[in-house]
């Protein structure tokens, strides 16, 4: 029986097990929305397309499944681009369907026309402009396949409206045929042997892991490997949750705002075992002084990530889980007592710490309390800024997919809509967006979405009245000239929450933190908590951009600050 393009697409989405689609309708997708009206797919109407994209992304990160969003042509599609770029930088599996004007109008500057395949080419893993209904099924299959295999990423399908109304009765293929796309899952055995040799010879190894651990789901193998060889493990922001931070081999996060002991360990190590991480500049600081004494092993699914920023000695292209499974039996158990002793010294000498005096609650304290109240079993999303770094530092992540944060692109406004997706994907979990007052206002309209769907998402705003992270740089490097970082006329977030139909609380004293958190967690609906923190709180330690751990600024070592 002949089906319309819209019906073909919706049937394929159902067949692929898509539970939720996030988006906003418009002229070019009217036929699609009409078809969705009768389908079992639950549509989550957001209040901005960026919110839809981040929500689909959050859903994908929380569940490991492909996130799907659907928006109209032109402005609907361009509004989605930040979310696509965010997913691209953090390798999230996302399929974004954008409406397009009728085929015969393409290229004519028609109403609500934008060249979205052109615009998204550098921020997608792949994209399609469908010009013939017969290509639609193949493109949908390929899009899901490409998005969710190899190094995951977003794929855009741009669909002209006249294709959604045209009918076709051809067979829907099941398989994909992509001769140019063959991700390598199995590491080369010779390279794995070389890696094992280097590991067994190493006296001072450090394992440095990134988001790849989470994507490939190899946290168990990682733990087993670390315990067998007594390897200290440090993770990037994206890797948090991939290794239990309450484990004695954990060094926490490394890099610009990482722990000093992680950064010292990397500086002194003789072997760096990088797994599913990409040597981002926020991690390495000054490149030629990053792990200067170390031989480097790099295990990654993306060959282009290897030796991109730093020359690697033993590259292994493959999926982290498969590779670690092969590598494990080759690793000789070792105590490495001297090295672990040294690390213990650093941990004692440079612990993460903050001054908890004063009446106002400290952000670090709030985050520790969030951890305690949720027993570390929540899904935490963050926005971007100081609050994001405090979360990374002071929330003890022990399980994968419990931190959802925009690491690569650093997108303010990501955390709240991502929390919506995460909550839908994990209905039984507590989902908390740890937000900044600046970032929250970038997608604050999604309060309507959480209220409408009665999602119990909690938003904890670390309200410093500033674009705090930028202010911190101005304080440290621009003589406190606070150019355009003071948010003097922030709204009353409690009233804003209430206006949307959510609950709102304000916390201005340290002793209120715990009881208000407990009260908020007990509420079944959405809650916004406005935590008033000091205006000039800083994130320490900090290794200034392009510098090394020797130049680290610690709490109390910077004039006037504590």
């Amino acid at each position, binding site marked *: 029986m002949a089906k319309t393009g819209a019906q073909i697409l919706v049937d394929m989405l159902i067949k692929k097990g898509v539970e939720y689609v996030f988006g906003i309708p418009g002229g070019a997708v009217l036929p699609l929305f009409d078809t969705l009206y009768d389908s079992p797919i639950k549509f989550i109407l957001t209040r901005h397309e960026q919110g839809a994209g981040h929500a689909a992304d959050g859903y994908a990160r929380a569940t490991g499944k492909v996130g799907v969003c659907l928006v109209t042509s032109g402005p609907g599609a361009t509004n989605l681009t930040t979310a696509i770029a965010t997913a691209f930088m953090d390798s999230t599996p996302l399929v974004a369907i954008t409406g397009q004007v009728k085929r015969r109008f393409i290229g004519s500057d028609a109403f609500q026309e934008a060249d979205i395949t052109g615009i998204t080419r550098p921020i997608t893993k*792949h994209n399609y402009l469908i010009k013939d209904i017969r290509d639609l099924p193949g493109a949908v299959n390929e899009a899901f396949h490409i998005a969710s295999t190899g190094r995951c990423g977003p794929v855009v399908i741009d669909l002209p409206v006249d294709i959604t109304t045209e009918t076709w009765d051809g067979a829907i293929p099941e398989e994909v045929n992509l001769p*140019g796309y063959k991700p390598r899952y199995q590491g080369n055995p010779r390279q794995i042997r070389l890696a094992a040799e280097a590991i067994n010879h190493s006296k001072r190894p450090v394992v440095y892991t990134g988001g790849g651990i989470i994507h490939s789901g190899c946290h168990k193998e990682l733990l087993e490997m670390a315990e067998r060889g007594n390897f200290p493990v440090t993770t990037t922001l994206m890797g948090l949750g991939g290794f239990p931070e309450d484990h004695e081999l954990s060094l926490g996060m490394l890099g610009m705002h990482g722990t000093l002991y992680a950064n010292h360990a990397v500086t002194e190590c003789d072997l760096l075992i990088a797994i599913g991480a990409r040597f981002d500049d926020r991690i390495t600081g000054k490149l030629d002084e990053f792990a200067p004494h170390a031989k480097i092993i790099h295990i990654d699914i993306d060959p282009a990530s290897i030796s991109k920023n730093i020359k690697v000695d033993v590259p292994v292209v493959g999926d982290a889980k498969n590779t670690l499974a092969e590598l494990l039996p080759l690793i000789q158990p070792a105590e490495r007592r001297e090295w672990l002793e040294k690390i213990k010294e650093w941990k004692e000498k440079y612990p993460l710490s903050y001054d908890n005096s004063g009446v106002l609650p400290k952000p670090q304290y709030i985050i520790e309390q969030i951890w305690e109240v949720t027993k570390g079993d929540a899904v935490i999303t963050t926005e971007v800024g100081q609050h994001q770094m405090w979360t990374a530092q002071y929330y003890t992540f022990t399980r994968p997919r419990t931190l959802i944060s925009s690491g690569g692109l650093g997108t303010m406004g990501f955390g709240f809509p991502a929390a919506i997706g995460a909550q839908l994907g994990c209905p039984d979990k507590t989902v908390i967006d740890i937000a900044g007052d600046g970032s929250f206002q970038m997608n604050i309209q999604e309060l309507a979405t959480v209220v409408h769907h009665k999602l119990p998402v909690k938003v904890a705003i670390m309200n410093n009245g500033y674009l705090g992270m930028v202010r911190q740089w101005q304080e440290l490097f621009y003589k406190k000239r606070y150019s355009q970082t003071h948010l003097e006329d922030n709204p009353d977030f409690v009233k804003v929450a209430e206006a949307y139909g959510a609950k709102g609380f304000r916390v201005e004293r340290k002793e209120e933190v715990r009881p208000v958190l407990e009260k908020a967690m007990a509420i079944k609906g959405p809650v916004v908590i406005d935590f008033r923190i000091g205006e000039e709180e800083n994130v320490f330690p900090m290794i200034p951009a392009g510098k090394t751990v020797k130049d680290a600024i610690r709490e109390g070592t910077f004039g006037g600050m504590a």
Partner: protein
Amino acid sequence: MRHVITALVENKVGVLARIVGLFTSRGFNIDSLTVGETENPELSRLTVVVKGDDATIEQVRKQLGKVIDVIKVIDLTDTPYVERDLLLVKVNVPPGKRGEILEIVDVFRGKIIDVGQKDLIIELSGTEDKLEAMIKLLHTYGIKEMARTGQIAMARGSK
């Protein structure tokens, strides 16, 4: 160092845009880029000439390989291969110099493909060096217009 890299790509819309975009966004410096059909109408062959250190060239190869529609990437530089560039040049013919110019064309085994009152169009194919050498000589007479295809290349022998 100069590298000649060829890639077999699917003959689909947007492939060329994707590859050109990749070169600009990653900051790779290309001398030339050509695309054309192959023996299989569904595939095109792309030839790029890039300059860069080993790390850059490795990135070029890997980034090209990441493009979904790219099937195979080969760096010809370390294997025996042939390369050709095609040149059309309209050269000024000063009075009394026609003979000299014809001689040059002859030495390079070029072809005269159009003769005007005061100019000639010469066709020459060959390696970059050969083309450069003739262009240099023709400069003395004045080059009015020039067009080149950029390199195409192929590995020698069976493979």
